[in-house]
């Protein structure tokens, strides 16, 4: 036993030594048989470990060899049919690859050479099935600096084509391809180029095709990168191009500059950027300036801009903490107007936006400035915040806007050839127009804008001096709605009506009921409900004068009109005392008063009240007008007293004793007037026309007048209504004359009731 015990230590030592040798041999076996590093057994264990991590590795080798290239340097030469790595949300497969990797083992592990590595094809598929983890705040940009072991002396990697597919809920969202070329540049830098091409299948994006090239170069203490790319829509009207260059120093911020631009709706735009991203990626400072070409605007507006709209220097500062906050400062937008408009109005703004909360503030200033067309200044400041019920907006009560157009003719000239041309006769006016707006916040979803309007416009024979006050209220609560209340007072008005002849008043505004172009037959409710209440009136003692060739002197008018979007038109129009030519005589309108009486239906009633005096050498005739404008009632009187027929004869023919033809005309005129078959306009034309004869058809209630307008011209002055005629038992055909129709209640002949019979009657009331 003792001998045995003496042998035991030796046995143990030998055993230990033998084991150590075996282990050492095993350990050193790759040194002598380096191919063991890529043996099937090693690969099996690698796959086993990866599967435990939820990743499947599939390998189809073509060739694999590992050899010592030099002391301490192992060279891996591999060739494969396919290498696939499949994870839960992504697959990546490389096909037909062949490459070389040299690693140095001494003094420390280091990749000495990478490549040549050529991969014929790769496939990358990413699946996003709505299981995205909620992002807790913005993720910091990961900026990786290459460790020293990963800086090979030689790099030659070439991935000829990698197909990329990204799925969103089993629907292909993006497909594209990229290639990768990396090589060792001078001074030990690694330079990579990644050209990529992407097609977007989703309709949510304007840009459907993207081509980009990312180049980066790792230098000793920093990275340089350049990104150039272009994206376009289905058509080439929308193009986005990016050209950024930057540098990232380890432990320092990322600096970049470049431009973003392209075409939007064929119009070029560009923003030049210069910025810095903090090392942690939590702060971005950006200075930008740029332009938007007027080509982006509709053609009718484009010509009013001389050149592109300029964004002057604008500083943006974004903070990516728990909330993203973007501050803007010193931003100025300059709008260079066309020569006719003159000036370059500038809008300055600053503000802050917090995302994703969508709250912040914005202040826009229009500094006092004057162009050829306008002069004005303004300031608007508001805080906003998105809430459950919509955008909460609080406008600073100091907000104000004041615009004055000192030369109205500039506006006239500017708009002359446009659809918004100032119509005649107002286009002959010169002078100024001023508008002032102020903000008056009311609650969180209402804003009132008290406004005032002044005009002082004149021409040789016209004038329009207006003073208006009102309020524009906008409500963006449950529904977006606006209401304009405006009280316009005409302090002075003189207008010239076009020269007219007495042959009827034409329709000069297209009827909105006739649609010359295709429009939807039924429209839904307006998204923006707009209502208005306008009151337009003459000042207390002011008159609006309308001059016309038919009037010996301008017609002095006073009016008070109420025009509402949700109520019928109401108001009054008064013709103040004036001398006019009527019945070829100078007549005096003592007063003519029109009242629009709302009936709640389409056709409102215009009530009349007036009196006109016509003086003759031996008589004075007064004409009373009552009733409604389409059925005026005319009463005639004279001093010294004449019969009605004599008065009509006097008015129409200038003589109370007439021949038979003229007597017929007098009867017809009397019948038409008595039946109220003539509207006011027709009456006026008759009164102004040298009449040869008049005939009246009581059935159609049409009056036909032969008037001396140049050669004999027959004018049809039908004023009667065609529908239900209001004729009765006693139909008047003159002041004291009527055709009385009766249904007799029997007679004594015994023959029973006879047919309806009538009498021509003279009557008088007393």
């Amino acid at each position, binding site marked *: 036993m003792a001998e045995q015990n003496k042998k035991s230590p030796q046995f143990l030592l030998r055993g230990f030594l033998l084991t150590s040798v075996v282990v050492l041999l095993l350990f050193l076996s790759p040194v002598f048989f380096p191919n063991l590093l890529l043996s099937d057994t090693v690969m099996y264990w690698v796959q086993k470990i990866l599967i435990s991590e939820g990743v499947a590795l599939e390998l189809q080798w073509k060739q694999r060899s590992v050899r010592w290239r030099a002391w301490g340097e192992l060279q891996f030469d591999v060739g494969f049919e396919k290498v696939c790595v499949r994870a839960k949300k992504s697959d990546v497969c490389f096909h037909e690859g062949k490459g070389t990797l040299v690693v140095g083992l001494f003094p420390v592990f280091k990749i000495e050479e990478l490549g040549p590595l050529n991969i014929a094809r790769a496939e990358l598929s990413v699946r996003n099935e709505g299981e995205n983890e909620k992002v807790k705040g913005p993720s910091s940009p990961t900026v990786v600096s290459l460790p020293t072991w990963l800086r090979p002396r030689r790099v030659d990697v070439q991935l000829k084509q990698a197909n990329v597919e990204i799925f969103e809920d089993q629907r292909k969202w993006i497909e594209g391809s990229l290639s990768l070329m990396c090589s060792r540049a001078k001074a030990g830098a690694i330079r990579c180029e990644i050209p990529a091409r992407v097609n977007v299948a989703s309709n949510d994006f304007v840009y459907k095709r993207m081509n980009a090239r990312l180049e980066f170069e790792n230098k000793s203490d920093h990275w340089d990168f350049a990104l150039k790319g272009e994206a376009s829509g289905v058509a080439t009207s929308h193009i986005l191009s990016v050209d950024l260059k930057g540098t990232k120093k380890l432990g320092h911020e990322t600096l970049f500059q470049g431009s973003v631009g392209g075409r939007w709706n064929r119009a070029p735009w560009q923003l030049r950027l210069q910025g810095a991203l903090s090392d942690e990626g939590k702060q971005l400072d950006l200075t930008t300036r740029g332009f938007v070409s007027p080509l982006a605007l509709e053609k009718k507006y484009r010509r009013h801009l001389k050149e592109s709209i300029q964004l002057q220097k604008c500083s943006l500062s974004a903070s990516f903490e728990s909330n993203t906050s973007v501050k803007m400062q010193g931003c100025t937008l300059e709008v260079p107007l066309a020569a006719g408009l003159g000036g370059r109005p500038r809008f300055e703004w600053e503000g802050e936006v917090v995302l994703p909360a969508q709250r912040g503030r914005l202040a826009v200033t229009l500094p006092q400035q004057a162009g050829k067309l306008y002069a004005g200044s303004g300031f608007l400041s508001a805080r906003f915040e998105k809430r459950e019920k919509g955008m909460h907006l609080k406008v600073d009560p100091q907000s104000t806007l004041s615009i004055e157009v000192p030369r109205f003719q500039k506006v006239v000239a500017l708009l002359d050839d446009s659809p918004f*041309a100032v*119509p*005649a*006769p107002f286009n002959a006016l010169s002078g100024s127009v001023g508008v002032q707006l102020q903000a008056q916040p009311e609650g969180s979803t209402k804003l009132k804008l008290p406004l005032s309007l002044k005009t002082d416009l004149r021409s040789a024979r016209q004038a329009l001096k207006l003073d208006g006050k009102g309020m524009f209220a906008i409500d963006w609560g449950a529904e977006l709605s606006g209401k304009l209340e405006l009280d316009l007072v005409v302090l002075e008005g003189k207008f*010239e009506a*076009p*020269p007219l*002849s007495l*042959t*009827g*008043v034409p*329709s*000069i*505004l*297209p*009827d909105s*009921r*006739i*649609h*010359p172009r295709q429009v939807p*037959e039924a429209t839904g409710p307006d998204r923006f409900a707009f209502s208005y209440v306008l009151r337009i009136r003459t000042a207390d003692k002011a008159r609006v004068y309308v001059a016309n060739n038919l009037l010996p002197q301008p017609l002095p008018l006073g009016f008070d009109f109420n025009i509402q979007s949700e109520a019928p038109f109401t108001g009054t129009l008064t013709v103040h005392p004036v001398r006019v030519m009527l019945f070829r005589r100078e007549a005096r309108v003592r007063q003519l008063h029109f009242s629009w009486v709302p*009936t*709640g*239906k*389409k056709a409102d009633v215009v009530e009349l009240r007036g009196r006109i005096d016509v003086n003759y050498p031996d008589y004075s005739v007064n004409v009373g007008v*009552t009733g409604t404008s389409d059925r005026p*009632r005319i009463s005639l009187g004279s001093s010294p007293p004449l019969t009605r027929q004599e008065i009509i004869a006097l008015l129409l023919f200038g003589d109370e004793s007439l021949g038979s033809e003229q007597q017929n005309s007098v009867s017809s005129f009397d019948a038409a007037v008595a039946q109220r078959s003539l509207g006011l306009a027709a009456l006026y034309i008759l009164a102004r026309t040298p009449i040869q004869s008049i005939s009246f*058809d*009581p*059935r159609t209630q049409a009056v036909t007048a032969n008037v001396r307008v140049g050669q004999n011209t027959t004018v049809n002055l039908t004023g009667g209504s*065609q*529908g*239900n005629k*209001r*004729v*009765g*038992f006693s139909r008047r*055909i003159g002041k004291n004359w009527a*055709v009385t*129709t009766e249904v007799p*209640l*029997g*007679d*004594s*002949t*015994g*023959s*029973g*009731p*006879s*047919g*309806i019979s*009538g*009498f*021509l*009657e*003279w*009557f*008088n*009331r007393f």
Partner: protein
Amino acid sequence: MRHRSLYKLLIVLMFLGVQAAAMELVCPGLSLSTRVSPSLSQNEKTFVCPSPESAWASIPRAQIKRHLRAILQSRGHHKPIFEVRAEGLVVDPGPVSRVNEIEFRFSGDSVPMTLPQNWKGRPITPSLLNEIERSSAVDLQNRAYPCAGARATVFAQRPGNVVVQVDTGAFTKLKFSDIELAPSLKKNYSSALLSRYYAFLNNRPFDQQMLLLTAQRFEGTGLFESAYFIPQCENGNLARVSLRGTVGLPRLVRVGMGFDTEGIVKARASWRHVRLGANASTLEMMVLASRNRQELTSSMKWYLSTPAPRFYLMPVLSGVHQFEQHFESFSLGFSLSPAMTFELPTGQLELVLGPAFQKNFTVRGPDQGDISLLMLESRMVYLSHSLEFQASDPLEGTSWQLSVAATDRAILSDVSAWRMRFFFRRLWNIGGYEPARVVLGMRLSLNSTGHVGGKLPPDFRFYLGGSDNLRGFSRLELPSNGLGALSSFYVSTEARFAALLPWGLQPLLFADVGAAGDSPFEFHSPLYVSPGFGLRWSSPIGVFRATLGHGFSIGGSTSGRWGRPSHWQLFVGYGEEF
């Protein structure tokens, strides 16, 4: 070859000539590529051609286009094409759009529309759209929708199709309390008093036409010189109906005349007071004179109570002299009849029942001598609203009258007798066109007298012939024995072609049939037939009618007591209607 070139040149020149002829130069710088009808008026040109030395010296092109669109719309051209050429603005007016179909869309109740059928093929102009809108609205306003409005629209995608968006408003029953008198009227009349003339019933579906008829009654009775109702709506509901107008002086003197080939000249003079007492009773005295009849009548409508505004007493005192072909008589009468009018949904019914005393003296004809009668007279008269509304130009409607008189020798009478008279008239506007194209009319009368012994006054005997019944015979020509008949009937039909001729001339065709008998409700042969034709002229001073008919006796002798030789008969009259 030279000839060929020449021909080509000629063709080109002709083409250019046709083009130039088709062009219409509106003014320098503005022309129409094809002429429009009618050409632009001087006033229309004023709005599209600059007027030098005025504020209209420069008219922007956009304004010219706008005005031209409107001017061309008034001629039915909806799609003008504007082209700016070297010579100025050239406008192609495009084709004329015409009505092919009218489609109604309702935003309130869906109501079948009954528009007159005269739209198809007419150029679509703003005034036509106005007419369609007005007719649509009026149609509904006459059928319980006082706040109805319509908007006619034409969409480019469906040319010729007029879409009428009808907002019917609320279905409304009109109450008397909805009528609001203007302050100036309240001084003279109360609402209750005026309600006696209402052509509508309380709390019945609104009818705008009945408001017009009511205003017509106001004016016709002399209560108002002019009257009109204005329905006022708020949010599609009738808020009130304002009655406005002017009240004339209460006394009215009238002197009138008419004529026809029967009575030669008819003259009438009357004096009327239309506002007697608090209830506005009326008193009238009238003198009527023609070759056949002279009459002096004094009558009153004595309204006793405001709470019963349609009830009145009607005392009548009259003296009549008749001078007819077969008799001459004098009569003096007095009656005092309670009477009442009832407004029915379709018309007005008047009931009269009361005693009447008549003293008659027949100078010539049957039963000559003195006759006294104390009668109980009753009368029912119905006149439809439509006929009343169109009284001076009747197109459609109904009227009828039934009167019965009875007397007994035991009560201050010389004879025991009864008399029944019935008359019915109906007119149809065939096709419902407006204006009417063909108006068809029918008249029917049935009269009968029964008596026990004694003498009868002339108005208990019946005669036929004349413009009122058988137009192929002269006035009261039948029966030929001159004794009159104790029973008679006739049916008259007439077709009037209202839109066939211009200038308001309307030709007409008619056929009348009648018979008579000498016992109550018994008729002897022959049957009297009178077809014919005529002409109606609606002149500014009233209606003239002329008819030419041929009288036949069918089924009996042309001679003897009942017979009559065939002959032509001409009537010309003023103021008469079928």
